[in-house]
């Protein structure tokens, strides 16, 4: 009796363990998103599809681009990119296809958008589907689609300019402190202009999460104008922030104060081997002491 109960308990677990899912992935460069800038309309995007088929493939593998949501098959106005028969794609397992940005549905619709239009972001999805079953002529079929559709975005919206909260004077340097950095920003630039100069000199890029940037190699007692701008993944650059002013000042740390007071230490590498000698002596002693402790 006990063995029957055990079998009844274990059988569903075993059966469940034998079910392996079919899958479909669509990626570009290993990623499921791609953001391009406004000048990318002629860009040809190459993507890779990968399938795993458990059971029998009953319908062709179809991949299409849509400006709306992915269904189980292309809708009217969608752009079909791949159409492989059920007899061929399972054995192939993977393949590539291309799509030209300016040919995507939003730009070829009856009322088309302008590719790369200023201040506009347009997102397309690359969708795919096929169906599987244990027997294509009997029973229900399962539609296999990517877990997350691939998203291709043409982003022509400039990020907002960051805010310079403070410019902190240092010795031949300025520390610029930022707030309100646009979430879409990936890189940050700081521009500096000395009095009498016409153009700002750009420093960077710095990572956009770096809220404090140190600008070095400046002259003390010179009032510099400082402004900042950010760039997003699509290459859109914000307008520059309003300019702030900072003047580096000559400062003295402990060592300069010590030297100025008459101290004779001059530091440097003269005592460099010292540490190694101490460690070497210690290791030698411990090596000699490796003999058993005498009691």
């Amino acid at each position, binding site marked *: 009796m006990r063995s029957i109960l055990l079998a009844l308990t274990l059988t569903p677990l075993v059966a469940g363990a034998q079910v392996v899912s079919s899958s479909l992935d669509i990626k570009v460069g290993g990623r499921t998103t791609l953001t391009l800038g406004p000048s990318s309309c002629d860009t040809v995007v190459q993507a890779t599809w990968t399938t795993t088929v458990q059971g029998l493939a009953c319908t062709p593998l179809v991949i299409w681009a849509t400006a709306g949501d992915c269904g189980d098959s292309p809708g009217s106005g969608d752009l079909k990119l791949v159409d492989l028969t059920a007899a061929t794609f399972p054995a192939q397992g993977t393949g590539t296809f291309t799509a030209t940005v300016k040919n995507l549905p939003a730009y070829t619709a009856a009322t088309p958008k302008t590719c790369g239009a200023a201040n506009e972001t347009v997102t397309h999805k690359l969708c795919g589907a096929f169906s599987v079953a244990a027997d294509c002529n009997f029973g229900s079929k399962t539609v296999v689609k990517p877990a997350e559709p691939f998203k291709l975005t043409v982003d022509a919206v400039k990020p907002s300019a960051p805010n310079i909260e403070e410019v902190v004077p240092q010795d031949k340097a300025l520390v610029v402190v930022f707030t309100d950095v646009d979430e879409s920003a990936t890189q940050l630039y700081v521009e500096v202009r000395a009095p009498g100069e016409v153009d700002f000199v750009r420093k960077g890029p710095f990572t956009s999460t770096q809220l404090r940037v140190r600008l070095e190699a400046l002259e003390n007692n010179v009032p510099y104008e400082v402004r900042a701008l950010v760039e997003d993944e699509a290459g859109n650059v914000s307008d520059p922030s309003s300019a702030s002013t900072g003047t580096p000042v000559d*400062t003295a*740390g*402990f060592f300069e104060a*010590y030297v100025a*007071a008459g101290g004779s230490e001059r530091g440097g590498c003269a*005592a460099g081997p010292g540490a190694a000698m101490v460690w070497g002596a210690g290791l030698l002693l411990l090596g000699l002491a490796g003999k058993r402790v005498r009691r």
Partner: protein
Amino acid sequence: MTSRGWLGLCLVLLPLGAFGEEDATLRASPRTTTLELKLGSYTPRIDQESGLGGATPFSSTYGGGLLLGELELDHHLFQAFGTAAVGLSVGYGEKFGRATVVGTGESSTEMVGFKVLPLKVWAVYRLDYFAFHHNIPLVPYLKVGLAHARWWATKGGAIETVEVTQPDGSVTTVQGFGGKWGYAGVAGLSFLLDVLEPRLAKDGDSDIGINHSYLFAEYVYEELDDFGGNAFNLGSRRWMFGLALEL
């Protein structure tokens, strides 16, 4: 200490010693090593340099001393009457302050730092005979050592550099880092923690090899001025407190 004081100390320690009775049924594992972790306030004797003429650049910049942590490992050589050992220690401490604006002397927003990394080789003697044979849980000890300390001064996150005008009018750039040699001596007293929980102490030995544990206080006397040099003296006079494990 007066005779009454000694009597009071004995009255306190004797009951503790009673807890330290050896259990003849359990043999302790061999003692070979002592590991010490210690902390103390460290003020280098930089401001005592005669050439400063009474100026105190270190304390003026950083205020008081810095917190120094040290790790020491001693290997036992001899365990007849007390324990003789040789050891290595390494420490680290840092302190931060603000630079001053040249000309006005006002405090600036620029941060400055002083960092030190002392290294020492020790000869150690611990008078633990009475702790292990007469159940007095106090172990006095002495250490003498050769020392070397690395130091570096920073400003704005980088090594501070100073331009020094030479007698011939040329200017050289001096970098704020280096090392100093010297010697150190230590006198300390450890309290054997085994007496508080003898059973736990024996389990610690049998399970993980910790023969004994101590709390200790020690006074450090050190001179790190390149054996009488006229420049930086990274030596100090300080107390250190810590935990010692005998393995």
